């Protein structure tokens, strides 16, 4: 890692024991942001006052001998599509510029209740639609390993904030790979939980049946701690799983001895760069060395994931984004009647990618096309789930690349389809609601990070952390060597 910063677990331990104050932890984070975020541009807004108040509260709790929580004094960055009361929440859209929600997302409340310090809101592709964080109305975020490259997306700001050492933890949201792919491109750990394991209340919806919040961290253990903190049933989210979610932290150190792990054939072929494929095979060997049985497995329907996803996600988005009409909040462009006002507002407020997906989704749901497109895509989800169930009858975990390539240059993928292909490995998990973890494992031929994806069945989240830790320990890249200096020129 390029950061000499403490992990979340180390920070919390020091703050809890009184070796360091939360105010000091916050100051370190803020200093790092001040020094380098002008180049990286991970943050859209900093929430200094809120973080300072929380740091004071944590320090007071420590002073009074109270339990300040497992994330005491840990600076954390929040993707700007999660509501923070009184602080800007824009989804990187002009539509919501200046809007301050009157309530906190459940995950934000839980993090603060655990003692974490919310330091700011991070950049994303507008409404989380994209794989490069270039589709932000407020400009792109850059990859801390190479400022000429994208950080991936849509949670590129949160991935970059951890990779750049601004914070040990951040939250992203993952609808088709938006946590895992930027985690891979930025060389950090990224986790998409089982659908329903983490409350979506306060997460601004992109595609409701696919969206899930999860952590970015520099270590697997930090990600586990964060997941355990934000996960669990929330009565405000009707899709939240009512039963207890197995603790990820408790599974750490379990290893993979005796586990059966399958490498998904269909995600190791055409379209995956050779250097990435080589790293996945190397990771598989590391798991085998640790006592796992690793074999190839075919899950043929995964190849239909991309097509199904690009019907389902836009369809849900077209409905979820209808509310941005200029009536109640956010931006308005006036018109002579309300219809014209709605249209003028939406036309000015949304970027092209958002418009593209709204139109695609509107079309997929419209009468005469529903069965051929949306209806069919919903059946493909079942097909993929059936095939995964088949695979999991022989394997405990599956694995694949997280992203077909390492980080690409800004502007390199200008046509939508080539950008959509970035999500080919990550989308299947979203379609079926399964958990998946991306762990950094070596670098590509260009010296940039490669991520390996581990997949588990519903509620197999904890198992992923045990296996992820094995890969972390076997990571061939010297953690301090890679990306220790920032490459590339910052374009004005």
């Amino acid at each position, binding site marked *: 890692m390029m950061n000499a910063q403490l992990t979340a677990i180390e920070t919390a331990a020091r703050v809890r024991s009184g070796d360091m104050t939360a105010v000091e932890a916050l100051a370190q984070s803020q200093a790092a942001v001040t020094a380098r975020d002008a180049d990286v541009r991970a943050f859209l807004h900093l929430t200094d006052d809120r973080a300072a108040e929380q740091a004071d509260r944590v320090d007071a709790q420590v002073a009074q001998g109270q339990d300040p929580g497992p994330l005491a004094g840990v600076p954390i960055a929040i993707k700007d599509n999660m509501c923070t009361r009184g602080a800007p929440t824009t989804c990187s859209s002009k539509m919501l510029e200046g809007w301050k929600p009157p309530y906190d997302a459940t995950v934000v409340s839980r993090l603060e209740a655990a003692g974490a310090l919310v330091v700011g809101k991070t950049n994303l592709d507008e409404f989380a639609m994209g794989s490069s964080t270039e589709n932000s109305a407020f400009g792109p975020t850059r990859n801390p390993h190479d400022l000429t490259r994208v950080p991936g997306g849509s949670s590129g700001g949160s991935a970059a904030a951890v990779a750049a050492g601004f914070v040990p933890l951040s939250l992203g949201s993952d609808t088709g790979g938006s946590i895992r792919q930027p985690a891979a491109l930025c060389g950090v750990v990224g986790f998409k939980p089982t659908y329903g394991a983490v409350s979506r209340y306060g997460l601004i919806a992109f595609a409701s049946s696919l969206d899930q919040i999860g952590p970015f961290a520099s270590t697997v253990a930090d990600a586990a701690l964060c997941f355990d903190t934000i996960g669990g049933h929330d009565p*405000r989210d009707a899709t939240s799983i009512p039963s207890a979610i197995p603790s990820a932290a408790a599974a750490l150190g379990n290893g993979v001895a005796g586990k059966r792990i399958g490498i998904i054939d269909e995600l190791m072929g055409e379209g995956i760069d050779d250097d990435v494929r080589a790293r996945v095979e190397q990771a598989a060997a590391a798991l085998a060395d640790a006592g796992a049985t690793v074999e190839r497995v075919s899950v043929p329907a995964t190849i239909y994931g991309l097509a199904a996803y690009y019907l389902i996600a836009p369809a849900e988005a077209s409905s979820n984004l209808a509310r941005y009409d200029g009536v109640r909040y956010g931006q308005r462009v006036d018109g002579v009647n309300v219809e014209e006002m709605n249209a003028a507002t939406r036309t000015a407020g949304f970027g092209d990618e958002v418009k593209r997906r709204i139109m695609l989704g509107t079309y997929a749901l419209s009468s005469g096309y*529903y069965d051929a497109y949306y209806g069919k895509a919903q059946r493909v989800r079942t097909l993929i789930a059936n095939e995964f169930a088949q695979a999991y009858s022989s394997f405990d975990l599956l694995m694949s690349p997280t992203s077909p390539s390492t980080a690409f240059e800004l502007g390199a993928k200008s046509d939508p389809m080539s950008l959509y292909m970035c999500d080919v490995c990550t989308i299947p998990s979203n379609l079926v609601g399964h958990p998946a973890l991306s762990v950094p494992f070596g670098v590509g031929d260009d010296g940039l990070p490669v991520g390996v994806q581990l997949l588990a069945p519903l509620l197999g989240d904890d198992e992923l952390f045990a296996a992820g830790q094995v890969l972390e320990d076997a990571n061939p890249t010297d953690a301090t060597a890679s990306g220790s200096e920032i490459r590339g020129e910052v374009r004005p």
Partner: protein
Amino acid sequence: MSELPDGWEMVIGLEVHVELATQTKLFCPCANAFGDEPNTNICPTCLGLPGSLPVPNAQAIDYAMTLGHALGCTVAGSVFARKNYFYPDMPKDYQTTQYEHPTNENGSITLGDGTVIGVERAHIEEDTGKSTHLGGGGRIHDATATLVDYNRAGVPLVEVVSRPEMRSADQARAYVSELRDILLATGVSDARMEEGSMRVDANVSVRPVGSDELRTRCELKNINSMRSLGRAINYEARRHVDLYESGQSPNQQTRHWDEDGGRSTPGRSKEDADDYRYFACPDLPPLVPTDEEMQAIRAGLPVLPAARRQALADATGIEAGQAVLAVERGLDALAIAAVRAGAPGDVVIKHVDQNLSDGAGQLDGPMLAKLVGLEVSGALSATQVKTVLGELVASGGDPADVAASMGFEAMDSSELATLLDQLIADNPDEWQRFTEGDTKVQGFFVGQIMKATQGKADGKIVNQLMKERSSG
């Protein structure tokens, strides 16, 4: 009673939106209240704020299933769907409703006269906010701005959709009245048309009598009372007939009922109205009622108006159609008790319908039976019975004692005969005219006897005695 020219009949289907009597809204814990200050019962969810999520109100689901059972529907698993269209009083720009899988399907409502009207479905959905159009002298088309209050947004509704099986405005009114009685009996809604907690849209078309075709229909909105409902339907049906008879035909459209003007005017159609892009709401898991829930709901159902009318008819020997008022007034149990205590059913129903419009008060079945006994035996006059009844409603008591305390001594006919004979002797000319067939003087004799008895005499008995004297 059709108001159409001969040869035409109406085809009417009703869509009734009923607000459920819950404490909170359908998907959020804001108060479900009428008449509060604008925008005071609102939260992230019912305002459609980014990031908010819906969670269904268990009581609303329970009420909807209760209504479904009361309407004899198949009550089954259901799925919430999104109906997508833009309107400023709809905070998410989609309405959460039920589409392919509604909670209730295939029920019916039995009208007072025994006609059965099919109910296609009764599904759960959320209400919209309320728009106020400014300027333009109240005319919607000339408004300069629209103001929106979201207090009503998200209030739970059940939309009860009838089959197009009503044939007159009176039948439509009877259907709505019956539905209202069912809602009140089950406690599902307070069903107040004037407060908008029950809103009726009418789909009206016409066709030649004897045809079974369904012609182009118009949907009438803004019907705010039972009176409006009848007027609007009659107007609209007549308009259709006039169009057909002049060689034209109506366009399928939504029309706005103008109560003051007594006419319907075309609504401005939504360009995108025909493509709502329904799909299952991904934020809301399906509802699958359990056997226990269903049993509890059925067990909690009160006896419904149609069954009560039938029970009353069976107990009293009247037609079910004559039992409507008694059941509507909630006096069917009293009437049955009175009949069981020996009173003739038709007399009991007469009192319930004519003399108990404000309820029974302290009166119970045995009291009513005893009073009717005094009436039938001629011991009390009709006027006296009415007076005693009023007193029994106010304070209760034994009917004979009450009559006595009011001085309504039962006068036997021999006393009356003595009085009459004296009167004949005192007024021979008038008696002569009566015997010759001048019935006008009958009133003179009855009046005099009433005067002499301070109204205690039974007019019928006096008439009978006079008839005997004149023919004897």
